[in-house]
């Protein structure tokens, strides 16, 4: 189970990417989708998800609608037009970081 700090930097990218693949999602659904796609390898814990969602909403990347499901209010998140553009930029940024990281990790140790 992966809940390490490495995830923090990419959490917004993960959320935006998930919402790009589906019209709208609610908080719990996002945690379950991440768990499902990563086959339980990545768990969004310690309340990191909601602050990230609220930050993306405040930045105008996400918009919300509230619906009543079984008598309780459920907040759905969806990408705004601005958020749609941000997905591409964030993905490029993440890919570039992964590539650089891979280069660094692939450095061969000096032979002594």
């Amino acid at each position, binding site marked *: 189970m992966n809940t390490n700090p490495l995830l923090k930097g990419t959490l917004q990218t993960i959320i935006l990417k998930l919402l790009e693949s589906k019209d709208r999602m*609610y*908080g*719990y659904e996002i*945690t*379950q989708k991440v768990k499902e796609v990563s086959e339980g390898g990545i*768990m*969004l*814990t*310690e*309340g990191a998800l*909601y*602050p990230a969602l*609220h*930050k993306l*909403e*405040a930045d105008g990347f996400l918009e919300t*609608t*509230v*619906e*009543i*499901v*079984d*008598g*309780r*209010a*459920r*907040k759905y998140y969806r990408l705004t037009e601005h958020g749609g553009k941000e997905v591409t930029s964030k993905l490029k940024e993440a890919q570039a970081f992964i590539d650089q990281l891979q280069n660094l990790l692939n450095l061969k140790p000096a032979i002594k």
Partner: protein
Amino acid sequence: MKLTEQEGELLKQYLSKILKYRETYDELYDHVVTALSHKTTITSFEQSVYDIITDDFGGYDNLMKLEKASKKMAIKDTIKGFLIYFTGYFKFPKLLYTVAGIVMVYYFTLHFQLTLWTVQAICPAMICFPQLYYFVTLIKEFAFLQKRDKKGYVFKPAFKLNVIAAIGTLPVWIFLPFTYWLPPIYLSFWHSPHPVFVTSFLMTSVLYALSLMKLYRDIAISRTHIILAVDKF
């Protein structure tokens, strides 16, 4: 795991004690109930709730931290929204209406000499209007809470409504000190109100009030959406 009515009430009470605001309460209550409904292992209700709060949020203390962080974000978002509405009146196409308003008010104050009494009545009224508007929204909110509370839906104060209160009170706090600390300037303004000052003051007040009303309308729309849905339920 399906919640019984009693368990549902217990959970509402428990989360109500921790979470003070509607935005976080609604979202986290839905999260916990949905997580409970997906639980397949049979443990006690209390243990299951404890497990969800620990696994998904890192424990009781983190729920409060989460609410604090969300509040900060909502305040920032609401102020930003207000400023967008306000500055929107100085951008095309609304700028045309603003300019037309300025010209009309200026023409009116210049050609129809306002009596001192009229100026003294209009200006404080404009200062107090945003706050009065907030009080009306508060009464509406209270009536709404009273009516809907019976349906078992827990309504809590919203972060955004608190920001509206602060924005509504701001003009009073800005102009109130003038009454006590700067009487000569204050009085000279009232005794010989120049049309430019009156126009600037009135237009700023009107645009401020309009921006506040728009901001409240945004919150009211989402609230109306909940009312209709709860009524259907």
